């Protein structure tokens, strides 16, 4: 059985969407020019929002700390540009709600050189100091969830992290940021990985890459120093290979128990982009103020992989790529399977935003919904072995409490069920509705 698993290198179930990566996979990462307006929401990550430490009218330099962590599950925030703080107030965010953010006007004459340009002495840092440094650098999971990276580093007593797993699956269609990073910055990736591995005290670094990126696997293999405890594991191309529990199953053939975290099986999982950000901070002194974003989709004139300063409005990014083609109807932040639609081009690029995808009439056409015929395709797609058809039916009947009996909270909303449904039932959307009701519902006063 073990040998058999080694051959397959995958998890069970899942789906096979078309990759659509050909638009951008061969395009080198390029830098977008600095614009004028930047907006840095204080809550760019899961957890507590950061607290602004600057005031309107204050001059800031690129890379300067402008907000400090608001708690443990919170990170620092740095100015992406040299310029002036215009306003600190409520702005409409990606999800359409108003949330506190810092608006910055860039100085058109500044050199935009990063403020602190020096390596940190990470080797002599204690683990606590290292964790705090990661927190202050504002580093979060760059794969999309934007979970603060330092929280994963603080492991409770009694748990030993044995493997550092680096997630280079990039299983979402269209996105090519991790792919390009692995090709163009393999040294930074491996250096960052070594820093993380040593600080975690892990035995080895494993980099999981989907097999549709043979050039990335090749490049990384070439750059591994002889004798270094690093191993590249090519993985089967299947969605959602990049979901951390799925990748642990694929690489180590271990199921992370429901309700537990990867650390409970001795694994620390980080995205390629996160590890590169670690290297940039500890070796070059650069906090998280910019990130790589794939701009693609049928509605983009010139698709590209871009380094974008955080806080840049999507409008500027799209404009740099030649603007929207006629017939563009929807913009997704993130991947087409799990990303979020945005309502306005004025929304800023956030730390967790790996892609800006523009879709046209064709992809967004409303498909006629048929009744569920219990064909079971969603059960065969769900990587968590849930019963999505049952969950969707319960949600439609507003029987949200019953959804708990079917383990609705084990659902990670990967969207495989909706993808697979021949009746075009928005299954994952219905499940989200149920989860939302269960989490946010106010019980009537007794």
């Amino acid at each position: 059985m073990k040998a058999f698993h080694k051959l397959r290198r995958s998890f069970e179930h899942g789906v096979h969407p078309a990759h659509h990566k050909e638009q951008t996979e061969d395009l080198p990462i390029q830098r977008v020019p600095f614009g004028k307006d930047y907006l840095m929401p204080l809550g760019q990550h899961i957890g507590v929002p950061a607290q602004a430490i600057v005031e309107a009218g204050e001059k800031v330099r690129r890379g300067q700390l402008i907000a400090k962590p608001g708690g443990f599950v919170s990170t620092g925030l740095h100015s992406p540009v040299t310029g002036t703080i215009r306003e600190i107030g409520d702005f409409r965010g990606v999800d359409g709600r108003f949330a506190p953010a810092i608006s910055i006007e860039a100085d058109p004459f500044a050199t935009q050189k990063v403020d602190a340009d020096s390596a940190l002495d990470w080797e002599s840092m204690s683990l606590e100091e290292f964790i705090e440094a990661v927190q202050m650098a504002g580093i979060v999971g760059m794969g999309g969830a934007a979970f603060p990276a330092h929280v994963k580093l603080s492991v409770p007593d009694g748990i030993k992290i044995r493997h550092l797993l680096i997630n280079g699956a990039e299983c979402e269609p269209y996105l090519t940021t991790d792919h390009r990073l692995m090709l163009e910055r393999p040294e930074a990736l491996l250096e960052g990985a070594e820093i993380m591995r040593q600080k975690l005290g892990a035995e080895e670094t494993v980099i999981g890459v989907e097999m549709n990126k043979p050039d990335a696997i090749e490049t990384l293999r070439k750059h591994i120093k002889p004798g270094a405890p690093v191993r590249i594991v090519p993985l089967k191309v299947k969605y959602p290979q990049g979901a951390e529990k799925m990748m642990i199953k694929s690489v180590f053939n271990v199921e992370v128990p429901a309700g537990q975290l990867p650390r409970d099986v001795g694994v620390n999982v980080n995205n390629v982009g996160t590890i590169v950000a670690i290297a940039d901070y500890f070796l070059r002194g650069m906090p998280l103020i910019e990130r790589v974003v794939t701009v693609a989709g049928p509605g983009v004139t010139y698709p590209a992989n871009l380094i974008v300063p955080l806080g840049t409005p999507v409008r500027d990014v799209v404009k740099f790529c030649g603007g929207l083609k006629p017939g563009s109807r929807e913009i997704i932040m993130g991947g087409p399977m799990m990303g979020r639609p945005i309502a306005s081009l004025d929304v800023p690029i956030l730390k967790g935003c790996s892609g800006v995808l523009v879709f046209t009439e064709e992809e967004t056409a409303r498909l006629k919904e048929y009744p569920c015929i219990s064909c079971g395709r969603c059960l065969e797609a769900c990587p968590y072995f849930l019963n999505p058809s049952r969950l969707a039916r319960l949600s439609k009947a507003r029987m949200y409490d019953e959804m708990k009996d079917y383990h609705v909270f084990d659902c990670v909303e990967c969207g495989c069920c909706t993808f697979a449904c021949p009746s075009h039932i928005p299954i994952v959307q219905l499940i989200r509705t149920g989860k939302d009701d269960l989490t946010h519902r106010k019980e009537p006063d007794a």
Partner: protein
Amino acid sequence: MKKQDPDLLLFHAPLLRQGMTTPKAMRDVIYALLPATAAALWFFGLSAALLLISCIAGAVLAEWMFANRAERGQSLRDATGVLTGLLLGLTLPPGLPLWMGFLGGVVAISLGKIIWGGLGHNLFNPALLGRAFLLATFPIAMTTWVPATGEGGFFSVYDGSLTLPFMQSSFDAMSSATPLGMMKFQQEVTPLMNLMFGRTGGSLGETSGLLLILGGIYLYLRRDLDWRIPVSILLTVIIFSAVLILFDANRFPTPQFSIFSGGLLLGAIFMATDPVTSPVTPKGAWIFGIGVGLLVMLIRVFGGLPEGVMYAILLMNAATPLINRYTQPRVFGRGGDSK
């Protein structure tokens, strides 16, 4: 600048879909039935064509009559009415009066599907429900089997076919027997080759085993059918009859005879696998299939009827919600069964 912004839609991800749709899946089943249908025409001639058309006409008319006015066109386009009519027709004796076929089609859709709430909500397989209705209402006509087209060739029509509505025809003129009937009542075995290629008496679509299997393979390749159901039904039947043979090789049918006789293949591949009325969970599919297989053999060998596929499937249809409830899949990261 602002004015040029397109009105952005906010459809939630995932935006991507695989290409299969429910109407496509239904049409696939129709395509898969075409070889067996062609064989039915070849063996039973014009009567077969007329009977199939009457069944489909009845089903589609019922679909149209009872559909919500706004969705009328749509519910016809999803092809389920045509499919139900075709499946029903294939389970009927070739010489059945056409008006009975038409009535069966109407009942299959109205009582088998619409009354439950339409597509996806019915408990029983509509085509089999229609057949059960016909069998209960016209027991003689439904058990009168005619031989494959004889002297008249393709264009000859069985005497019974054109009987006027609400009239019974005289049947004794041209009756034959199904392989299962001969087995049960005369202990006479039909050669296997005849069974496989269809040169036997029987319902329109059940006589040619090989073409049915061909359709099943097509459906499997298109991922339209849960392979566990036909496989478990057939395995159960094979094992059951193999065990019986150990007791008395002369009295009981051989496994290959059991598989290729009667409506077993038609039922196992096209009726029991109806997604709506079969369990949705993989484990449930096995239980369902084994249940159908056991019931078929029990009815055939120990029951009073020569054939039991229809009742076996209908009985297991009734058990499907229960099976679904008790066979929820094991959830990732949760050891053992979750329910």
